[in-house]
């Protein structure tokens, strides 16, 4: 063969560059292709569009609560009485597992709006109806694993790590709220 050692090496370097370059280019494409196959499982456009609902709260009397469905999840809307508000305000925030003042959790003290899903493993706590077991703190009680929530929906006892979530909501008027 007439090729010198140098020419050989140069040739093989060029080859390696071509192989690695092609491999890298193909890998980038493969990686990009994966995304649509994954993203298709995320909430679709029709689900995202259901993001907000308006609720008429005028029929809810003091001491009553209603449950509405928002994004497929129950939302508790409770018309609290003076004693409940007082009870919720008295608590020493520093002693709580998830420290939060009652005023941080409400827009108007008499209306408590929260996602009715226990932050432990996703059950719906009892306490919406008058006859329900409301737990040791007179709020909500999750029957699945025994989490107790107070009148502000804060976790007081049991395995749940956080207070019941407060969704984004606003008062459209005195009798109407918009969730989401």
């Amino acid at each position, binding site marked *: 063969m007439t090729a010198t050692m140098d020419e050989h090496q140069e040739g093989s370097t060029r080859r390696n560059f071509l192989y690695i370059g092609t491999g890298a280019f193909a890998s980038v494409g493969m990686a990009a292709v994966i995304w649509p196959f994954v993203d298709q499982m995320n909430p*679709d456009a029709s689900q995202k569009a259901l993001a907000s609902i308006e609720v008429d709260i005028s029929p809810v009397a003091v001491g009553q609560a209603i449950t509405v469905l928002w994004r497929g999840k129950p939302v508790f809307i409770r018309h609290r009485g003076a004693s409940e508000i007082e009870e919720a305000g008295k608590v020493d925030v520093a002693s709580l597992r998830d420290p939060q003042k009652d005023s941080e959790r409400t827009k108007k003290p008499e209306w408590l709006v929260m996602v009715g899903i226990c932050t432990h493993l996703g059950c719906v706590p009892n306490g919406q109806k008058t006859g329900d077991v409301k737990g040791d703190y007179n709020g909500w009680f999750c029957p699945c694993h025994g989490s107790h929530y107070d009148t502000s929906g804060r976790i007081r006892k049991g395995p749940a790590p956080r207070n019941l979530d407060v969704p984004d909501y606003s008062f459209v008027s005195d009798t109407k709220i918009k969730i989401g």
Partner: protein
Amino acid sequence: MGHHESNYEPKWGIAKWFDERLPVARMVSDQFIVFPTPRNLNYWWTMGMVLFFFLIIQLITGIILAMHYIPHADMAFNSVEHIMRDVNWGWLLRNMHSNGASFFFIAVYIHILRGIYYGSYKAPREILWLVGVVIYIMMMAAAFMGYVLPWGQMSFWGATVITNLFSAIPLVGDSITQFLWGAYAVSQPTLNRFYSLHYLVPMLLVAFVFIHVWALHVVGSNNPEGLSVKSSDDTLPFHPYFTMKDMYMSVVFLTIYAFFVFYMSNYMGHPDNFIRANPVVTPAHIVPEWYFLPFYAVLRAIPDKLGGVIAMFGAIMVVAVLPWLDRNPIRSLRYRPKARFFFWLFVIVAMLLGFLGAKPAEGWYVTASRILTAYWFIYFLVIVPLLSKMETTNRRMPGSITDAVLGHHGKISEGAQTASSGH
């Protein structure tokens, strides 16, 4: 699988430990890396890998579509549109699946015609050929049932016409169609079971693809010369030579496929399938998907219900028995000019039949379909067997694949050149 000796040697301790218990790496190495493959394979031999790619694409996109599709007569159409409109990337995934079916068939038709041209069905590859025909029939079943799922007018009436083929069977025909429908017409139970079967058939197909590859690796690939492998000079390791050649062609195929997915996504379909299924109105022209058109033309060429159905299934079955119709020892049509002429005539006839399948069944269209259908059967049942006896020698045939590659033709003496020697 293949008969060649394994030269796989695990390099690390863990690989050795694994190899003694489950020799997957050895299998991959033996069958897909060092596997001896005829060095003279041309690009027509790349369709196997292309088909494998499309099988994967269809399986993945199909599993995803099943997450969003609803097999209910009232909701199927809307759920498909929901996929096209609302699901993230749904339009892409659905276009990939529907056009993927077409490209699957394009590749399989090239694959089959290559097999006929180069005599890949001949001994010792008869089982390989038969398994291939089974895969092809399964593909047709899966594609047909898949086309029913969007529940548009063509879905519904296509399903009605095809299932009614079985009513041609004497005595039990009507019972069979009702059994297929689960009702007295194509309706909800039919849609629901077609959905289930559309998912099942591809799973079976995967199993048959495995058997197909197994059968291929027992006897090894045929090649454009139609000569059997005689020495290791005749072959190259599968990797990197054929992996790269196949992958290159797969990317070329994917490019054409992408063109259709993104720019002509509805071109292979029919506008009528965007009209909801309506059991009381039949579309003016019922046209199956393009890949069924030649057989549809054969069906309509025969003016008798049972006769048409027999002719249609017969047109597929004559392909299956090809290894026994053509017993000529020369495999490749490269060395059989007469057979080559009739082969290309057959290809043109098949394409013309496809064209006629899309035309209304009236006037000269029917006459032409009859003439071409006659040729289809005459080709397989008369021309092929006759030429099989007549065209048994060729002076120009090289002695081996290596000779052919090096351009040495006509090395062996007349009368001694049997292509099927040495197995």
